[in-house]
């Protein structure tokens, strides 16, 4: 394995609760994946990376407007987590949502066409980058207001429990979002009512230009559930197998009726917060060091080679397929027509009054 066991045990010590006076799951183990599983996770991460690079280019060309938040660097989080969910589970996130949609299996064409504001977009061009949804895929958005998705995610969990359908909800939010009061109101209700919810903090270490420790009195965010008795685990979010191991354990815990769980994914975004970020709050070297030492795609690639699961040619073939898919999605998104003007007035209300 690419990571040393020393790192694993260090992680264990770091997340041991100071007051383990209520049930909590065991520490997660790194996921042991089959060749097919490894290649599929590789494919999904590369797809998200290439898709986002192309989205960045289209923004630069003026084909995507407004705010556009790229997921580059954080791919392992959503790929590792989604791999452990089943059809019928619900997921919800904020505005940095393109990667989540691709990991849910939503067509890259429909996502890209939403970014360019075309009728074929997943929201018919009405939502744009920050507001995309696919009920069919259990993807409930795509929300532009920081932390709004957290109680909404708890509500999706509430609905699963109410219907007793055996499904769970996963709500993703950022380190900055973790400071909103509604997060804690949600933790309280979720634990009180034992809702099947996994709260995932994607701690990419910055909220726009504010680093975690400039905004958080408790910057070990996995502990943020403690006073509500929501157990928390801190996970290396740059290692897709660590993420998947934690996801497996979390899904079992939550699906098993034990109530909510909090996962803090330590990750990093390589790009600016959105496309208009002067990036003065962190050094160039910090970003390059992350890219060089902790890149989730390079890490998985190395493991695949080191353990002899596949050779360079096999991964190159995946890379090529992904490039073709992204090129097709971009062409589609540029050629697809804009929505008809009559669409302006549709979808405001369902009923006629």
């Amino acid at each position: 394995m690419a990571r040393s066991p020393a790192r694993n045990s260090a992680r264990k010590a770091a997340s041991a609760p100071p007051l383990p006076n209520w049930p909590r799951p065991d520490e997660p183990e790194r996921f042991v994946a089959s060749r097919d599983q490894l290649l599929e996770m590789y494919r999904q991460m590369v797809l998200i990376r290439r898709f986002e690079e192309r989205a960045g280019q289209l923004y630069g060309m003026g084909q995507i407007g407004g705010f556009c938040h790229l997921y580059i660097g954080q791919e392992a989080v959503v790929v590792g987590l989604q791999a452990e969910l089943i059809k019928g589970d619900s997921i919800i996130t904020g505005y940095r949502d393109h990667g989540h949609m691709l990991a849910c299996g939503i067509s890259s064409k429909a996502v890209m066409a939403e970014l360019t504001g075309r009728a074929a977009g997943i929201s018919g061009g009405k939502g744009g980058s920050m507001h995309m949804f696919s009920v069919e895929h259990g993807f409930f958005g795509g929300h532009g207001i920081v932390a709004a998705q957290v109680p909404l995610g708890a509500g999706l969990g509430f609905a699963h429990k109410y219907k007793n359908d055996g499904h769970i909800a996963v709500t993703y939010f950022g380190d900055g979002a973790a400071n909103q009061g509604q997060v804690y109101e949600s933790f309280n209700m979720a634990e009180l009512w034992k809702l099947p919810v996994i709260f995932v903090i994607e701690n990419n270490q910055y909220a726009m230009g504010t680093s975690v420790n400039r905004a958080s009195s408790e910057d070990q965010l996995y502990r943020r559930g403690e006073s509500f008795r929501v157990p928390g685990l801190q996970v290396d979010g740059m290692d897709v197998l660590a993420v998947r191991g934690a996801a497996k354990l979390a899904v079992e815990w939550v699906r098993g009726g034990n109530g909510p769980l909090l996962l803090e994914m330590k990750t990093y975004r390589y790009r600016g917060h959105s496309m208009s970020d002067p990036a003065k709050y962190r050094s160039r070297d910090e970003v390059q060091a992350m890219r060089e030492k902790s890149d989730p795609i390079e890490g998985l690639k190395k493991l695949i080679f080191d353990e002899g699961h596949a050779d360079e040619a096999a991964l190159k073939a995946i890379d090529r397929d992904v490039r073709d898919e992204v090129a097709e999605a971009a062409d589609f998104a540029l050629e697809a027509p804009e929505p008809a003007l009559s669409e302006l007035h549709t979808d405001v209300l369902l009923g006629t009054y």
Partner: protein
Amino acid sequence: MPQILLPAMSPTMEEGTLAKWLVAVGDTVKPGDVIAEIETDKATMELEADDGGTVTALLVAAGSEGVKVGTPIIIIAGEDEAAAPEPVKKPSPGPSLEEGRGDSLPAPLPGREGSGEGASAASPATAPEAPTGPTRRQTVREALRDAMAEEMRTDAAVFVMGEEVAEYQGAYKVTQGLLEEFGGKRVIDTPITEYGFAGLGTGAAMGGLKPIVEFMTFNFAMQAIDHIINSAAKTLYMSGGQMRCPIVFRGPNGAASRVAAQHSQNYGPWYASVPGLIVIAPYSADDAKGLLKAAIRSPDPVVFLENELLYGQSFDVPEGDHVVPIGKARIVRAGSDVTLVSYSIGVGVALQAAETLAGMGINAEVIDLRTLRPMDTATVLASLKKTNRMVVVEEGWPACGIASEIMAVVMEKGFDDLDAPVLRVTNVDVPLPYAANLEKAALVKAEDVVTAARAVCYR
């Protein structure tokens, strides 16, 4: 992608200055390396290479100003052809953009005689305001910053608080330089916790300070609206006059560019309906400065609504301690045939319409309300007395808006002066869509103001 085009680095960027090249011909670059520094009106930003390769040509010289978005600036030849993305195909033009709103304006009723009371007694503005002393050209952004800085220099109780206001210099650069001048005690970065810091600011105002609370945009103040309305606006009344709450809540309001439904709302009508609040929404830089200074000095809670699309626009701002009184509208253009009433970005739309109307021989008077609460109805009614026709222009929804309020006031107090029903021209009554054509169709437009003004003039 061998040829890199100058990208748009913000939703509103159209051109930039290529400040500096950080690579030279022959250099090898890795993905993510910074290749150039680009200056936009908001900030200097670093341009990164998406893919690695060798720089084979710099197409635009360092120091070039006004480089249009989309101009090829550099050629980087890929190391590995398989790794280079396909060139992006040229987009199809898409369907033609139909102009104008779908719904047609109602035919105006003929003028009627009535028994209204006429204009209120307060002394109305009757002529355009023109600065008498020296002025200088400033953007709205700079004017707002200067207003805060000047008030902070003279009153130690004034401090600024909000997300990214200090080290980042403001998400829209309105607080640029304040941290440097006033330090971390008075220019405070908050966590993302609007409800919390709006409440904390309100408490600090109750405790004798004069907070300026910036919301990154007013859309996010919906998280905090309980403190603005229930805590700040009602304190004086509920305490029988004992407790004050001198606080300014400020930030951009209204639609920006393609930021869609959750980030594009005009809260003017919401706050203007609340007794106990002052609500200000300026258009020009001189008013932005003078009214923000007045707001900071006011002993009452003020909601100060700015507009992102106006931040970069320049106006002549009087030098010195320029304070504009709260509660006074401004005649921005004198005219005799029809009155166009608006506020904030709508004033620009009204002025544009007035130009077109002038070409048609219709002389429009344009009134900028500037303060939405308390509203200067005297100036509105005095203008109506002169022109007998009125159109209200509002970048916001039609129902229950500021336009509705003006129409009600005119019904109550200006009925006898009307030669035609008052019309309103607003955004379309839907959440703001993202698609470029739908967004354009949804927003208030000068053409529609022209149509409405002609309708009330029966021309």
